[in-house]
C-alpha cells in the first residue's frame, strides 16, 4: 500500500506530533508514504472565502501532483480532506471550471485529470487496510481504555461528499477503537463543531462549545478523546486550561490524534508518538 501523503500545514506546525506519529504508525503497518512536499495549503475553506477559483486551483494542483505520482492521496487532517472533497466536487461537476483551472496550472507543468482518489487516513485504515488486519497488528491492546471519538465537521458534512457510510450516525472511529481493543464512548457532542474556526473571532463561544462536548465525554467516562482532525485538536487540547475556566471544572482529557491512538496499540512508545507535546498529558500513556 502506497499513498501520496498530504500533510497539511498544522502537521508541519503546531501539531508536528501528528506528522511524526503518522510516519511511525505507517512504518509499523507497512504502509508506504510518498510525501507531496510541493503541494500547497488546501485553503482550509478560508481561501475560498476570498476567491473560490483560487482555492479550487490550488487543490487541483495538489490533485495533479498525486496523479503524476500515480498514487491516491492520504489526508491526515479532517479539514484538508473536507476542503479537497469540496474542490473535487466543484471541478468535476463543472467542465468550464475544470478547463479554466487547468489553464492556470499549465505553466507550472500540471494538469488535473479528475482521476485521483482523495482519502482520509481514517477510511484508509478502516476500509483499504481493514480492521481485521489491524487487529492482527495490535500488540498492546487498549483494553480498559474508554475513548471518545470526536469526528470534526469536515469529515461528515456535507453528507453527500462524506466518505463515511452514514454521516449522521457514523461508526468508523468507534469500529477502529474497538479493533484496537478500546471501548468507544458515545456522547452527543461527537459530531458537533469543536469551535476552532472562530476561536479568534469569538473565543468565549468557541471554548464554550468545546467545553460542552468535552464535559459530556467526561461524564460518560471517557479517559481520552481521539480526533481525525488536528484543528479540532488545537481547540480541544491547547485551549483546555481556558476551557476548564469557562466550564468551571478540570477536564484533564487528553486529545489524541488518530495515528497516535493506533500507534499506541501497535506498541509504539508514547514519547515517540509525541504525546508529551500535548498540553494535556495523561498518566495512562506513560
Amino acid at each position, binding site marked *: 500500500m502506497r499513498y501520496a501523503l498530504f500533510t497539511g*500545514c*498544522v502537521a*508541519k*506546525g*503546531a*501539531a*508536528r506530533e501528528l506528522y511524526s506519529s503518522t510516519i511511525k504508525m505507517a512504518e509499523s503497518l507497512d504502509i508506504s508514504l510518498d510525501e507531496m*512536499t*510541493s*503541494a*500547497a*495549503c488546501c485553503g*482550509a*475553506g*478560508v*481561501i475560498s*472565502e*476570498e*476567491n*473560490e*477559483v*483560487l482555492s479550487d*486551483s*490550488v487543490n487541483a*494542483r495538489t490533485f495533479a501532483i498525486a496523479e503524476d505520482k500515480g498514487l491516491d492521496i492520504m489526508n491526515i487532517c479532517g479539514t484538508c480532506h473536507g476542503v479537497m472533497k469540496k474542490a473535487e466536487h466543484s471541478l468535476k461537476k463543472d467542465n468550464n471550471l475544470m478547463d479554466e483551472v487547468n489553464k*492556470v*496550472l499549465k*505553466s*507550472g507543468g*500540471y494538469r488535473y485529470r479528475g482521476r485521483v482518489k482523495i482519502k482520509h487516513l481514517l477510511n484508509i485504515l478502516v476500509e483499504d487496510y481493514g480492521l481485521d488486519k489491524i487487529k492482527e497488528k495490535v500488540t498492546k491492546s487498549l483494553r480498559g481504555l474508554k475513548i471518545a471519538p470526536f469526528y470534526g*465537521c*469536515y469529515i461528515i*458534512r*456535507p*453528507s453527500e461528499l462524506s466518505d463515511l457510510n452514514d454521516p*449522521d*450516525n457514523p461508526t468508523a472511529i468507534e469500529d477502529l477503537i474497538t479493533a484496537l481493543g478500546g471501548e468507544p464512548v458515545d456522547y452527543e457532542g461527537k459530531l*458537533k*463543531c469543536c*469551535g*476552532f*474556526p*472562530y476561536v*479568534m*473571532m*469569538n473565543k*468565549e*463561544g*468557541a471554548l*464554550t*462549545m468545546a467545553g*460542552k462536548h468535552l464535559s459530556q465525554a467526561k461524564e460518560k467516562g471517557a479517559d481520552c478523546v481521539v480526533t481525525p482532525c488536528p484543528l479540532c485538536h488545537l481547540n480541544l487540547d*491547547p*485551549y483546555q*486550561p*481556558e476551557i476548564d475556566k469557562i466550564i468551571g471544572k478540570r477536564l484533564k482529557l487528553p486529545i489524541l490524534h488518530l495515528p497516535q491512538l493506533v500507534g499506541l496499540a501497535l506498541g509504539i512508545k508514547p514519547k515517540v508518538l509525541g504525546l*508529551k*507535546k*500535548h*498540553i494535556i498529558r495523561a498518566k495512562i500513556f506513560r
Partner: protein
Amino acid sequence: MIFSIQRFNPEKDTSPYFQDYEFEIPKSATLLDCMNLIKWTQDGTLTHRMSCRSAICGSCAVKVNGHTLLACKTQASKVIKDGKVKIEPMGNMEIIKDLVVDFGQFWEKIERIKPWLVPDESEKPEKERYQSIDDFRKIDAGSTCIMCASCYSDCCSLDVDKGFLGPTSLAKAQRFIHDSRDRERLSRTGEISDKGGIWDCTHCGECSERCPTEAKPLERITSLRRTAIALGITNNIGARHVKAFVDSIAHSGRLNENILPIRSMGLFNISGLMSLIPIGIRMMMRRKNPPIIHKPIDEAEDVRRIFRKLRKG
C-alpha cells in the same frame, strides 16, 4: 416500532420527559402521518405544529434522532433505528408545549436584517425592472427559504451565543445583498459584518445539512463573506483572518501559524493580542509552537504564480 417523543406541558410538568408510543408504520407514511396517527388514535394531548404537509409552509420541523428535519417530507421508515425513533422539539428555542417551540426570537432576528428590498426610489419603472437570468440565479437559492428554522435549531454557534444572528437571517440577508435591484448592498454588508454576523459562523455545515430547501445557509454565508471582502469591509477579525491567511499561502504555499493570529487580531488591537499570550506561552512550553523559521513548500514559486494570476485587488 417505538416512537419516543419528548413531552412537556408546563401547566402540569416540572420538566420534559420522554413518552414511548408503540405503533406500526403504515406503508409509505411520512413521519408527520405517524405523529398525527398517534395524536388521533392514541393520545390527543400530543402537541405539534403542521399545516401544508408538502414541505413549503415550514411548520412541522422537529428534532429526529438528534437532527432537525421537516416531519412532512421524511419517510418514517427511514428514521427508524433498531425499531425506535426519538423525536424532540427544535433546539435553540424555548419549548411552549411538547414539540411546539417559541419562534419569537427567531423572527426578531429576521427583522433585524431589514428583510425587504430597498430599490432605487428615483427610478419609477412603468413595468417590471429588468433582471438578467444570471442575476436572478444569484438570489434564487436564498429566496427558497421557508422559515422552518431547521438550520436555526441545529446551529452550533447559536447554541453557545444567543447574540448570533443565525443562519436563517444571514441567508435572508444574502437574498437582498445580492439582489441586482437593491441599493443598500454596502450598508447591509457592513451591518452583518459586525459582532453576531457572518464572522460568528463556524462553518460547521449543520445548517445546510438540515435545510430542506435550496437556501443552504452556509453557502449563502460563504458568499456574503466573499462580498464583504470584495467590498473592502475588512476592519474586523474575521476578514483580517481571511486576508492574512491568503497572504500567507500566497507567500510560501503554507500557512504561517505564528503570524496568522497576530494579523487576524490586528496590530493595534492590544487586548486581542494580549489574549493570545497565554496560549502562546503554553504551547511554547511544550515545544508545540509552530517553527519560528517558516519554511516554504517546494515549488513555492509556482504557487505564488497562481496566486498572482487569480488574486484580484
